[in-house]
């Protein structure tokens, strides 16, 4: 098989879902003949003309429509053009999709694709990470694939799930991340389970989405300095696999949680809180967090590079952690 990219995997998953499951349809702006702003649905409309539908610019109604369709037994995939624009569909996501099963016993199995995260020059409204905001609300499942194989299999799993899923795909990984295969049955894990992507013994770095790769590069760098850093890829932020993290911290005694999101609250604070609660006595040093800065995501690449965690800042944070 040829090389496949992360975005290929997203497209292939949607292709395979449309092919194998008549309940699946795709709804979003420009997802039809145009193939979507990032080409994640390229060619799908010509194969499944009825089930790949261009929506008006109406994020609130797009999610409402998806919930309605799911009540009738469909499995909609809604593409947000950028995660940032889901802010306009926020109410329908958290209050309509998130509460329906609890309130009525009827599930709302929708999948909302959120092209997330920063790329240089994208600025405050085309760069946001929104997993923490949605994870706050009951009833939602939030996944953050960091590999090509996870991009594929977690999208398939998300659609299979009876609950509403926010599928946070990272735009930076779209074409940058490549693999020689689309999925890997041996390595496949269910939603809700984290993966140790690099074994180590001196410290645990927990990351998700694009930050997994920065963390791995930092671990490489630290390896040259003689440190063995364990890297955990969360894969889903809700449910959050506390057990795997705590087990890792049990081995290393040290924790750094890395996220590309804004620093207040969110995934890294949830991780640190859980680990200090469940694994306090395992910790040899205060657990650390590294997030983006507490400003909107800046437009200029110079500022953007300094806004989010990078290989360098992660490496520095690990070195600091090892000294504590």
């Amino acid at each position: 098989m040829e090389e496949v990219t992360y975005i290929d995997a997203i497209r292939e998953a949607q292709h395979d879902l449309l092919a194998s499951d008549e309940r699946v349809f795709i709804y979003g702006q420009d997802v039809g003949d145009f193939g979507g702003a990032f080409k994640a649905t390229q060619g799908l409309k010509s194969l499944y003309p009825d089930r790949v539908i261009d929506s008006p610019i109406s994020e609130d109604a797009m999610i409402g429509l998806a919930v309605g369709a799911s009540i009738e037994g469909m499995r909609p995939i809604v593409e947000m053009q950028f995660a940032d624009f889901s802010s306009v569909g926020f109410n329908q996501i958290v209050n309509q999709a998130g509460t329906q099963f609890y309130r009525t016993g009827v599930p709302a199995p929708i999948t909302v694709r959120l092209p997330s995260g920063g790329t240089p020059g994208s600025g405050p409204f085309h760069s946001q990470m929104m997993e923490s905001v949605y994870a706050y609300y009951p009833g939602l499942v939030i996944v953050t694939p960091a590999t090509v194989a996870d991009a594929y299999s977690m999208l398939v799993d998300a659609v299979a799930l009876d609950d509403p899923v926010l599928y946070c795909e990272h735009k930076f990984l779209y074409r940058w991340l490549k693999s020689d295969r689309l999925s890997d049955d041996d390595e496949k894990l269910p939603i809700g389970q984290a993966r140790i992507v690099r074994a180590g013994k001196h410290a645990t770095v927990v990351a998700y989405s694009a930050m997994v790769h920065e963390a791995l590069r930092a671990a490489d760098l630290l390896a040259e300095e003689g440190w063995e850093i364990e890297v955990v890829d969360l894969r889903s932020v809700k449910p959050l696999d506390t057990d795997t993290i705590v087990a890792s911290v049990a081995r290393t005694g040290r924790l750094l949680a890395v996220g590309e999101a804004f620093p207040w609250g969110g995934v890294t604070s949830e991780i640190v809180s859980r680990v200090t609660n469940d694994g306090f006595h395992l910790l040899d040093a205060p657990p650390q967090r590294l997030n983006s800065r507490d400003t909107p995501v800046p437009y200029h690449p110079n500022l953007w590079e300094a806004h989010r965690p990078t290989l360098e800042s992660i490496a520095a944070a690990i070195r600091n952690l090892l000294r504590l």
Partner: protein
Amino acid sequence: MQREFRDASSGPVKHVANRLLHALNQDVPQVERESKSTDMSETWEDHLRRTFRSMITARTLESKLASLYKAGKIVGGVYIGPGQEAVSASIGSCLTWNRDIFGALIRDQGGRTAFGEPILDATRSYLGSVKGPSKGRDGNIHRGHPAQGLPAMISHLGAMVSVVAGMLLARRLQGRLDGIVGAVSVGDGASSTGSFHEGINLAAVERLPLVVVLTNNQFAYSTPTDRQFRCRSLVDRAIGYGIPGYEVDGTDLLASLEVISKAVTEARQGGGPQLVVANLLRLSGHGEHDDGSYVPDEIRNSALGRDCMEVAEHQLLQAGFVTEAELESWKNEAAEQVQAAVAQAQQEPSPDPYTDDWSVYASPELAEDC
């Protein structure tokens, strides 16, 4: 009347007599939607009678709920729809339970009953029975049976328009849309929401058989319509969505049923979304905690302030569609049903936080302690 109506619509109107479903103790039928045939024909007279009976039941039930509220027997708010029964029940009586879709809102007891929601759903919800449709997790007007075509509203106004549209779109994709209609209720206040706009516009783009019934009851809580919109009538919005619009005197059952039937028929026959604006006055406070004293006497005393129940009673008696004796028996029957539904809900257990499950996920494996 009947002939006139048939002339107005572009074909014979057929309805199902789903009176049975109103029966007190019957739980929501879980039959397959497809299994219900809908080609029984019903006369206009029978349709009117059926609609009016639902109005009586709704009014009786809501009066009871209001007194229970005053007696402190209900936790949380009570939101009733006196004055709106004719419009609401007309929607419900044009739809078939478990086949069509009804996005009921805040003042739709009439429509719920006419559509087929058992009145026990209401008493159980208000009185906190664990056997209610939400098991006590949600209350009052937020109840529903999504899988039977009655989605459970969230509070955010306008939000159900797109949900009903989505239910219809799904039917189309499944090849089950033929002859189906989805109705959704909104108020004058809800018309100012972005959700309303997006939902109706999207339905127009998809040409879905969605009937939006906008009941302009002159107030959104305390806010009069001149703080809500500036157009002559909200029916003018239809033009901007490229869909048919109808305006009707919502205090008038005959007119309301005729217009709503017409809109429903048009939608069923492929005419795409329809907007019906019904004008009337909310004859209660916003909720039972509100005395509505801000409503000016001029409006109360205007034609808008007529009570649709009185108008309907007069209309049906005049037309000879119902006798005084029948009316009396209907009212008595409604009172008995309501009494029994209240009694039953009151003797049922409340939810128990220690034994009830708390699951928020349909996939139990996702549950975690946090």
